[in-house]
């Protein structure tokens, strides 16, 4: 399997008081294309920090992180913006849709940044809404949607550009069980159909049941890395 993320002896320190706080301590990991993997661990163990570095939103303090062939530490602002735009999708705990735009426009935004022609753009947005089963809500505003629907719009927004990698930080934390299963199934399906790599950070047992690989973090260290041949459901 093709490896798309290399992490080698990653250390991340944050300034704290007079000294430093080490959020990630000597983490080495590799992720292959098409993985459906979760980072789990107690609060403060470094899950979000790791996702942010992979997403080129933060820089490593030491060590080497390569995402899709690009070394995160050496990217310029422009290059890291380009990497996010071309290859990465983000999904958050709070859905973070733009409140003034319709569902359609929220999804469209990702493509506008790519200067895709209008006709193609429209086609892609409608397709993405179909993936998440929200074709009929295209013209609704985020305020009119339920939490589950909002998160599905966020998934459509992350997926519409068919990124190689989707980073999802606690995507189910605000959802009830039915909606959680629904969006996990949606992501699982997209993972299989589009070969998109999914990387989660989560506490949620429900999520873990869908994962094919679970990496446990504790105090910034990898303490366990398990693979499951079949999903547990």
């Amino acid at each position, binding site marked *: 399997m093709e490896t798309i993320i290399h992490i080698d002896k990653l250390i991340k320190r944050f300034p704290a008081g007079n000294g430093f706080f080490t959020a990630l301590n000597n983490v080495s990991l590799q992720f292959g294309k098409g993985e459906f993997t979760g980072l789990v661990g107690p609060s403060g163990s470094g899950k*979000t920090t790791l996702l942010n570095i992979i997403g080129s939103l933060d820089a490593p303090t030491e060590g080497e992180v390569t995402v899709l062939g690009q070394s995160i530490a050496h990217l310029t*602002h422009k290059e890291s*913006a380009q990497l996010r*735009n071309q290859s990465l999708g983000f999904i958050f705990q*709070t859905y973070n849709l733009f409140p003034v735009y319709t569902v359609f426009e929220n999804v469209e935004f*990702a493509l506008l*940044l790519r200067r895709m022609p209008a006709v193609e753009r429209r086609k892609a947005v409608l397709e993405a809404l179909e993936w998440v089963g929200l074709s009929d809500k295209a013209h609704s505003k985020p305020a009119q949607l339920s939490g589950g629907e909002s998160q599905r719009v966020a998934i459509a927004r992350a997926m519409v550009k068919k990124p190689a990698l989707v980073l999802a930080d606690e995507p189910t934390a605000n959802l009830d069980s039915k909606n959680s299963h629904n969006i996990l199934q949606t992501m699982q399906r997209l993972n299989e159909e589009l070969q998109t790599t999914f990387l989660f950070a989560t506490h949620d047992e429900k999520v873990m049941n869908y994962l094919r690989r679970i990496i446990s973090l504790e105090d910034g260290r990898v303490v366990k890395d398990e693979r499951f041949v079949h999903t547990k459901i």
Partner: protein
Amino acid sequence: MIQFLLKGVLRDKNRSLLPVIVISIGVFLTVLFSAWFRGIFGDMIDVNAHFSTGHLKVMTRAYAENAEQMPNDLALLDAEELVADLSADYPELEWVQRIQFGGLLDVADEQGETRAQGMASGRAIDFLSPGSREAERMNIPQSIVLGALPSRQGEALISHEFAERFGVKVGDEISMFGSTMNGGMALANFTVSGTVRFGMRALDRGAIIVDIADAQAALDMADAAGEVLGFFKESRYDEEKALQVKTAFNAQYADNPDEFAPEMLRLNDQNGLDEYIALSKSMSGLMIFIFVFAMSIVLWNTGLLGGLRRYNEFGIRLAMGEEKKQIFKTLLYEAVLIGAGGSVIGTVLGLSAAYYLQEYGISFGAAVQGGGMMMPEVFRASIGPEAFFIGFIPGLFSMTLGNALSGIGIYRRKTAELFKELSV
């Protein structure tokens, strides 16, 4: 993308409506005040020029020193010749003689006994020569309340207020006592041809306006005039040109020690108008500065609040692959857009209000009278060409500045921090 942002701006009332309102108000005030000041300053200059100072004025040096006492014993002699010379040397100006004098007006009853008396300030202008524009210059035809302009020697206009107070009617005879140029007693009789009200305290309290020839006869001032005034024929007052004329004229007499030699003054040199003109020039600059400053602070704060509210949006846009620089740029585009919109609205409103004030004016009555300056009682705005764009300066500048200042917050935060607020 631009279109997309535009949609967002229009839909987000916090981002569009509030700043547009702030800008419209500021621009409205800028436009209105600048037209207002322009009108007031212009009117004040015209009024002073027409009634008192001319664009240029020639007096004897001795008269000039005590001009406010109207010392006609120090008047210019050979006035006809002086006017002819001035007209030949400076044909771009029209030169006219005037006399100011003080006197006691006496109103008699049918038996010839004094019925009422009052002090009056007298003005003698050229009513009767054919082609004289003096009556129009002082706006007398529009200021007549009863009766008509003097049409022959021996007729006079008096203040309407004075006429009412003393029960003088058009056609009545009045006598004027004063002193002649040589210090003797002057007495002249006039028929009241009409009453006037100028809307200026100084003139309306008690004035008598007579033809210059009558005044010269009454005051023993044959071919003499207290003042010779010059007015640009083609334009309003022009400081620079006036200075050239004044300098050239006065140079002829530089070596002449005679206190009765003529001396020329500009409008600026009289009635304290110099400071006033300087003030008027700095006024619109000052106003723009004040509005830019005040509006920027307001918009900066609304921008900051909006910016805080929008950190979420910025975080997502970063995550989607926009650069900080790009986001900052779009903030500026938004600012220009909103600034321009608010400026257009404010300018239209400001011009409308200024137009109203140009047509109808506001009456300040006697409240602001005082000093040597003449002031009209009704202040009008005057819309000049700059009124159409002046508001855009504070409008665009303050909004852009406000957004730029609040947008700097984006730069100060690390990408990861902006982003972090997303997972709350």
